[in-house]
């Protein structure tokens, strides 16, 4: 029997024995799109990362040289450090502040709707624009905050934050958290509102305090939301680009440059093969903490 006929017979057999269900076939178009826009570019990217292609001329196979060169580049190692530090600061803060916002907004008070909108509004603005706006506010010697502090004789409080690495990273993290805490809040809010009220009533009857209710009722029931937020915030923080470009341009020099910016600059610097290799490395840098956090939150769920 020839191959197509065997295949069709096998499929029909699986349908009869209910091994393939309705959902299997309905997922095919989505899988095709996934294959076209993710799997195919990934495979091509892996191929490109093994070459010395400059984006224009011929490419030559150089094996894993790009990956070795990356780990020998001091600037690249600094960029990994900057990216990880940013993520370590931004991702937990986003979750903590988002959760606090959600707990506050879940209460009953006048103007709750407007408060939610105000908190969420920064998330709809382009991060690049947000970075430029914050730069106008925070620019040493010239920004709005400097002039406001000058009026009360405390301009030294702002200082030259761009000249200090720690201050730079703190500003970047805080601006990012300020912009996206609203988005985290929305997901937590949805989770909070799906928790049955009866659980809290039962806890109250059993004499549980607010913190006990939070710990033993709210947090466990919020696990799906926590999982979503932790994963998305890790991915977003490790892939940070716009806010750094707008606020510091990765500077001064390359001191606050992140991996995404490094990839862009390498690509445009006629090192397309190399930049693809770095992008693959970044893919794994993001994948590892995502897998770990998904495993941890799944256990808790």
């Amino acid at each position, binding site marked *: 029997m020839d191959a197509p006929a065997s295949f069709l017979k096998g*499929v*029909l057999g699986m*349908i009869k024995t*209910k091994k*393939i*269900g*309705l959902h299997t*076939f*309905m997922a*095919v*178009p989505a899988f*095709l799109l996934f294959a076209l826009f993710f799997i195919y570019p990934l495979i091509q990217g892996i191929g490109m990362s093994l070459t010395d292609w*400059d*984006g*224009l*001329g011929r490419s030559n196979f150089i094996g894993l040289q790009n990956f070795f060169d990356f780990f020998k580049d001091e600037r690249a190692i600094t960029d990994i450090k900057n990216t990880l530090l940013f993520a370590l600061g931004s991702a937990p803060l986003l979750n903590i502040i988002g959760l606090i916002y959600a707990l506050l907004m879940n209460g009953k008070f006048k103007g709750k709707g407007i408060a939610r909108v105000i908190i969420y509004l920064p998330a709809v603005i382009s991060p690049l624009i947000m970075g430029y706006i914050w730069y106008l506010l925070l*620019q*040493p*010697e*010239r920004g709005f905050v400097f002039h406001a502090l000058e009026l009360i004789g405390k301009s030294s409080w702002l200082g*030259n934050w*761009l*000249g200090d690495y720690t201050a730079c990273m703190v500003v970047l993290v805080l601006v990012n958290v300020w912009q996206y805490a609203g988005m985290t809040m929305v997901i937590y809010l949805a989770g909070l509102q799906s928790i049955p009220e009866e659980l809290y009533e039962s806890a109250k009857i059993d004499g549980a305090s607010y913190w006990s209710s939070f710990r033993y009722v709210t947090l466990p029931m919020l696990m799906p939301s926590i999982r979503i937020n932790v994963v998305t915030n890790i991915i977003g923080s490790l892939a940070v680009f716009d806010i750094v470009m707008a606020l510091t*341009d*990765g*500077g*001064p*020099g*390359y*001191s606050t440059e992140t991996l995404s910016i490094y990839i862009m*600059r390498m690509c*445009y*610097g*006629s*090192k*397309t093969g190399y930049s693809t290799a770095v992008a693959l490395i970044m893919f794994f840098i993001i994948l590892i903490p995502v897998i770990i956090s998904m495993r941890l939150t799944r256990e808790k769920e």
Partner: protein
Amino acid sequence: MKRLVAMLLSVILVAGICTGCGNSTNASTAAASNASEVSSKAEGHVNIKLFTGKIETIDLMNEIINDFNASQDRITVEQEYQKDASNIIKIKFASGQVPDIMTTYEQGFVDQGKYLDLSDQTAWWDRLSPEMKVDCTDVKSGKQYRVCTNMTMAGFFYNKAIFSELGLKTATTWDEFEKNLQTIKDKKPSVTPWFIFGKEAWHLGHLIEFIPHGYIKQQLGSIEAKKAMLDNDKAKLNFGAADGAMATFAKNLIELKTKGLINADVLTATSDNCVQEFVTGKAAMLSNGMWVLSSLTDADPKIADTIGFAPYPSYMPNSKPVVLSAEDSGYSISATTEHKAEAIEFLNYLFKAENQKKYSEASKAPSAFKDVQAKWASTNVVSEVNTALKDAVNIGFTNEKPAGFSGDDAGRLVQDLLSGKYTPETFATAYEKAWNDGMK
């Protein structure tokens, strides 16, 4: 039964998607062949794309393009502007979507044969100044792959009123320059002697191109300097030398910073800050090119009559002041265009004297065409520029930078210098290393 229906539905859905894509391809092929049939019927109507990164002349170019399109029915020109044109063009080359005419030009693209040889366009070269033809000549092949219609200059813009009040003359040596800055600081403490907007890496990169590279270009001559940079002739470039042009430039810059002769917020100041400080008299000098004139006159139209322009002073032994006098507004034709004749026809129209006059005045750059008389700037500025060009060695941009080490990258090294990461000597060796790495 349900599952069979589901499978059939999915197959139909997938087939529909594929057919749709195929249909659109077939449709576009059919449309293209229909279009070509129609166009052949309409005497070969073609569409050509002009790709540009120059925002300041986009409206005027659209005007000229619309006039050209209206003047005939065989060719339709469409302008595409991209802010990051020099990088977007790489994507276009890689994807095969190459525009017919482009304003972006790089040595790497010349070496890859991406541009059409324009050496035989004598109608253009005969009208252009001989210096412009030299500037447009590729050092490696001796041919011209672009034609530039304007000149641009860069040097120090200074506040003539402040200079006059303090009895200062423009400096020809670095010592004189530093004395001028010190006098301004002593007599006018609220005025920044030299304002540098160091947040923008390109600006610091330009200082490298004009000052230390300017010395090298002066010493070797324009053509030999280009060759030395293309060949990475370390003996001639000598970037890493502890007493070389790069280290001395770095030493001078650090000294100015230490003495408070440049703005304290050099690493965070932007070009907007610079323009505001200069037009309000809070900054006495700034380094920039003629392209800044529009911003200055927009901020204060009266400033055009009070701006001075001076060359970069000499700072190495046995050297002279330099001023950038370089090609601007260049056009190249893609080597793979199917519409060479039409592209040339459009450029002929664009290069007409009346269009170039308008262009020169809009872009604030003098025309390189001998038969174009344009009022590109105020009489004062034109006079200042002509004096500077006469008194200093004229140098060009460093178009021969390594592909992996751009002007912005050089500027970031200067940011590191100003933030204290390097000494002048380690800056020079870091610059040389970055240049060499960029060559790989």
